[in-house]
């Protein structure tokens, strides 16, 4: 029976992996992800979860072992943060290229240097183009639901891609929130057994991961791109089935109070709930502001973003980035949003802000400042090319 309990988000994610009845867990400790794998270690040791728990010696090994396990047809889970993901990087790219549906919970944390264990999105942005399906959770319930759904999405025979569930380090990982946990019987039939059509099988020997000569490499990459773009219909179908069965609705792009909004803030992750709170408060003071969250980061929902941001009375879009593309478009998400609106006639003004780097709190007034920058741009009609870093000391 489903029951609502107060639970740490990290533990909830481990419970979601256990609910999916994973066969192999392979992970290495790194703050702030560690509680996830510690809890899974306990579930395995207590006989609650029948899985192999591999205590590897590094993240590179963690994902390598997960990839190997996944290719034999085992349902596989791993989890990491920042430097751990950076060390995995070689295998991150290979996992998606090998079409292995490993599920990773990524506790978003800033990349070194300087060494920083706190939250921002520089880790997930560093693997933006590696071919993983990437989804953001805003709270513990979403982290639990999305981790569970990740297996169904990634393992779908039309998809066969790894899935990364992003949730903010400390801000989410270490907080206790009410979460509805399912019993096994509640989810009966939702997640079919994992059956990779091309798994390593002694009875049907195949060689995996050999050299791809110039004659074939391009075609492999094209297939990979087609696969992740086509995964969108499966993602939508899984969200729909989940909503029908369990009542909680998820979509690629989430909107809040945008019907009459002139200025909207585009967010990802736990800042979304905070931004919605700010909008509620400021609406009492007459401000017509709204929030649009890009939950599905890869495959990027160009059409959904385009239609959400051109709906109603939206005149200015402020995109909040939690990482920097140094020497590039600066705002990584902002750049994608501008691309999504490039062909749209009478598109809204798009400006970029960066905040909350390396765990710096984004305060109420910081959110207000972001919206006000949008209003300012509307007044002056100027669309600054570069992002504004909120609260930076210069």
């Amino acid at each position, binding site marked *: 029976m489903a029951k609502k309990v107060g639970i740490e988000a990290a533990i909830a994610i481990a419970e979601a992996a256990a609910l999916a009845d994973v066969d192999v867990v392979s992970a*290495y*400790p*790194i*703050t702030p992800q*560690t509680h996830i*794998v*510690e809890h899974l*270690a*306990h579930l395995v*040791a*207590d006989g609650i979860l029948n899985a192999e*728990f591999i*205590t590897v*010696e*590094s*993240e590179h090994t963690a994902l390598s072992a997960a990839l190997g396990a996944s290719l034999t047809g085992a349902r596989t889970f791993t989890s990491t943060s920042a*430097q751990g993901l950076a*060390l995995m990087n070689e295998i991150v790219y290979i996992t998606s290229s090998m079409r292995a549906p490993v599920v990773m919970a990524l506790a978003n944390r800033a990349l*070194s240097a300087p*060494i920083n264990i706190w939250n921002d999105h520089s880790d997930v942005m560093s693997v933006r183009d590696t071919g993983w399906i990437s989804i953001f959770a805003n709270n513990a319930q979403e982290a639990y639901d999305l981790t569970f759904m990740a297996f169904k999405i990634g393992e779908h025979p039309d998809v066969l891609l790894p899935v990364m569930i992003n949730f903010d380090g400390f801000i989410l990982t270490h907080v206790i929130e009410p979460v509805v946990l399912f019993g096994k019987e509640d989810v009966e039939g939702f997640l079919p057994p994992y059956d990779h059509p091309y798994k390593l099988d002694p009875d049907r020997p195949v060689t995996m991961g050999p050299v791809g000569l110039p004659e074939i490499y391009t075609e492999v990459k094209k297939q990979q791109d087609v696969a992740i773009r086509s995964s969108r219909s499966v993602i939508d179908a899984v969200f729909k089935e989940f909503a029908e069965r369990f009542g909680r609705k998820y979509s690629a792009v989430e909107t809040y109070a945008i019907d009459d909004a002139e200025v909207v803030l585009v967010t990802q992750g736990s800042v979304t709930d905070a931004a919605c709170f700010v909008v509620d408060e400021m609406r009492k003071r007459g401000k017509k502001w709204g929030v649009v969250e890009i939950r599905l980061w890869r495959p990027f929902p160009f059409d959904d973003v385009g239609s959400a941001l051109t709906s109603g009375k939206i005149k200015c879009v402020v995109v909040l980035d939690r990482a920097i593309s140094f020497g590039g478009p600066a705002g990584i998400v902002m750049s994608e949003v501008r691309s999504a609106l490039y062909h749209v006639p009478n598109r809204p003004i798009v400006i970029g802000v960066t905040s909350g780097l390396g765990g710096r709190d984004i305060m109420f007034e910081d959110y207000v400042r972001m919206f006000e920058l949008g209003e300012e741009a509307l007044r002056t009609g100027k669309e600054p090319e570069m992002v504004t870093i909120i609260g930076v000391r210069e």
Partner: protein
Amino acid sequence: MSVTTYRENPVEQFLRTDRMPHIWCPGCGIGTSVNCFARAVLECGIPLDKLAIVSGIGCTGRVAGYLRLDSFHTTHGRAIPFATGLKLANPELSVVVYSGDGDLAAIGGNHLIHAARRNMDIKVICVNNFNYGMTGGQVAPTTHFGRLATTTPYGSPEIPFNLPHLVASCGAVFVARWTTYHVVQLQRSMVKALKKKGFAFIEVLAPCPTLYMRRNRLGSSVDMMKLFKEKSVVKHGIDTKEVAITNYEDPIIVGEFVDTERPTWLDNYNEIMKKRLGDKYVPWGVNNG
């Protein structure tokens, strides 16, 4: 009225006191090892501008930040490659890697064996507290067989590394092990290591009272010090095959196990280049390397 006069602690000049209080738990052994190291540096008389400290990630990794020396806090496991670059680019420097068992033997294990094999002229001090302390007490490649960690809640099924044997078999020219009880001996070995040319390795067994000992009901750090005192057997020069610590109950063999000579990586490199290029080749770092 009596006048109290204070004498500065001789170790204080090596510490960034503005960074205190440090993050180590009461009863932790890392601070003891740092005290020994500072005294060893003092005894050697190495000019401080010729000494560099490199640490990885973890509780021991913080040493680089607390010592008032040129230091670098690298990423997890990469202290030895960083130190190798440092040493070869500026052979005049004495380069010390100061890190923990998790950093050096798990995620950085590959670098440890290759630096020993090459006889890279760096000194490695490995504080072994038998688990990953900083992340909350997970199983490490040094955890005693059957002991508890957060990732092995009913006991580790793995046989731990015999670290002195690992580096000795790869060709380290100086290998010692002491516990944080043996402060005098540890300091003496650190002096020898600092003066030694080639790859020197010292394992320092240390209590982790907050995580490893509490989880395994091993008492306090005082109990651990008593255990170190009672169980330790000094056997200089013993074959490192014999010094494995698999069980918590077995005697702990300590001492200086290896003290030998062989050409360093740079010696061999210079020789080969000299053979190829003759007088055109100017040997690198020969005065101090």
